[in-house]
């Protein structure tokens, strides 16, 4: 259905197929059907979540998929049960500080692994890549014991510190640095800039879009982090949004209307970031595969 009216490509013209063959039409019907179903299934839970904020817990559990009148009640119940501003502050604090530190430390490492290649550093890099496949579960217990030994349990730093040196992000920056023009660095050197000045004044501005994409990815990782904060954060006033919805959910009689409001609040920041920076985000994802 899409090709009708488009001129035939020269290569196709020689094979003398003036009309669109039936299998092609079938193919596009199948394509649009499959993609429409996939799009519906992908979007529906978002719709369900938004509708859910306006319904009572019982309505939600009974599968009511239309707007109701419970919105304000759900919002006020949530605000009564949880110090939501404090919890939001915790989430933003951990995510923003964590993201800034991760970007700085990982980009420095990625820069150096690519610009100053040496045999020793290549070997270290190979070991780091292997470590990517070691699951978090394998070291969370000793990590917990270390944190409690250092008196960091129930602090922001217990969450931030272990996530800051992210091997995947280092790898991402190293890949991106391959496109960084060496002539710029040489010119800066002739101008007498020290290496850290080159990094701050030349590399960082030139690599802006790489930083932007990494920001989104790392922010989302931090914002959505669950298992480690679940272990380390113990009091309600330190909890993040994600931990808060989880504990609302595991209550003896969970109030789904209230949970839906909290879920919307949790999803909103990443959703906004995604829509505002969509192109960068997709580029960032693609950058990591090249």
């Amino acid at each position, binding site marked *: 259905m899409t090709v009708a009216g*488009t001129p035939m*490509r020269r*290569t*196709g013209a020689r*094979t003398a197929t003036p009309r669109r063959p039936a299998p092609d039409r079938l193919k*596009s019907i199948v*394509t649009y059907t*499959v*993609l429409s179903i*996939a*799009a519906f299934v*992908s979007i529906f839970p*978002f719709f369900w979540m938004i509708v*859910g904020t306006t319904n009572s817990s019982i309505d*939600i559990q*009974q*599968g009511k*998929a239309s707007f109701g009148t419970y919105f304000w009640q759900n919002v006020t119940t949530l605000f009564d049960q949880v110090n939501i501003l404090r919890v939001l502050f915790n989430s933003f604090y951990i995510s923003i500080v964590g993201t800034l530190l991760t970007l700085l430390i*990982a980009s*420095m*490492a990625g820069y*150096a*692994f690519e610009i*100053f290649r*040496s045999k020793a*550093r290549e070997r*270290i890099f190979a070991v780091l890549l292997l470590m990517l*496949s*070691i*699951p978090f*579960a*394998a*070291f*969370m*217990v*000793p*990590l917990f014991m270390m944190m409690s030994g250092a008196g960091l349990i129930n602090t922001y730093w217990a969450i931030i510190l272990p996530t800051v*040196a992210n*091997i995947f992000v*280092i790898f991402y920056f190293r890949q991106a640095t391959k496109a960084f023009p060496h002539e710029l660095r040489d010119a800066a050197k002739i101008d007498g800039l020290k290496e850290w000045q080159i990094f701050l004044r030349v590399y960082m501005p030139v690599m802006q879009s790489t930083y932007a994409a990494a920001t989104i990815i790392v922010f*989302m990782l931090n914002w*959505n982090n*669950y*298992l480690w904060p679940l272990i380390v954060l113990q009091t309600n006033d330190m909890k993040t949004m994600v931990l808060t919805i*989880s504990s609302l*959910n*595991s209550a003896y009689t969970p109030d789904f209307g209230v*949970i839906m409001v909290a*879920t919307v609040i*949790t*999803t909103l920041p*990443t*959703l906004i*970031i*995604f829509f505002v920076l*969509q192109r960068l985000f*997709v580029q960032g*994802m*693609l950058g990591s*595969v090249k």
Partner: protein
Amino acid sequence: MAKTRLGRNESINGWGFIAPALTLIGIFMIWPILWSLWMSFQTGRGMALSFGGLSNIKRLAADPIFLKALTNTLTYLAIQVPVMIMLALVFAVMLNSPKLKGRAFFRTAIFLPSVTALVAYSILFKSMFATDGLMNEVVLGLGLVDSPIPWLSDPFWAKVVIISAITWRWTGYNMIFYLAALQNVDRSIYEAAKIDGVPAYAQFFRITIPMLKPVILFTTIISTIGTLQLFDEVQNITQGGPSNATLTLSQYIYNLTFKFMPSFGYAATVSYVIVILVALLSLVQFYVARDRK
């Protein structure tokens, strides 16, 4: 000499710039990984640990909950990863067609689940699959079943819900990688195949899949690692129930450490089972991918 000084400077900078990252990785990854290995040979309750040799490994073999968690995790892996990779590939190939209208819409829609928090979408799924809830209304309404399905209280259906949930969240994510890779594939290959009368499904299996092999390998390994570490979804949808039918290895480690009487040494042993599984499966996947080339 100028040259050696320059070389030394480069060396200082090279190490200086990676030092913060290496220090942090050393403290917060390498050290606890080694500690964990050491702990896996220790037994005892809470902080009172003593050397136990291989007793933890013996305990593994006789632990029905561990075996259940292991089987569950491998079941998720065996079903979810292939289904998801296949779906992602199909969507990517469909979206790659330049003639397709609404490409941006479909791509965004299918990718959208990837920006949700794992905990948030788990709770959405939990509410949709309530016994008298939405999903049952749909399947009853369509006449697919006669009586409501006990989604979360039946061992089989609970697994189905978990697998559907993970597939919902990650298919679009994998699709993006394939879309990127497809953009590098030369269109003329498909044109030629079309002229030769190669049907679409054969083009998919004979051209697309072989061309994307490295990316498929990459996403399969990433997904394997992710599924072997599955925690957030199960914890928030079923909490491992009914009677451990959905329990995963990561959850079991969590329970052994923070929920039951702390059993750090044994938990460390279970965690090394995941490490070994990841290593083995990555090797197998590399081998399979290389063999067919």
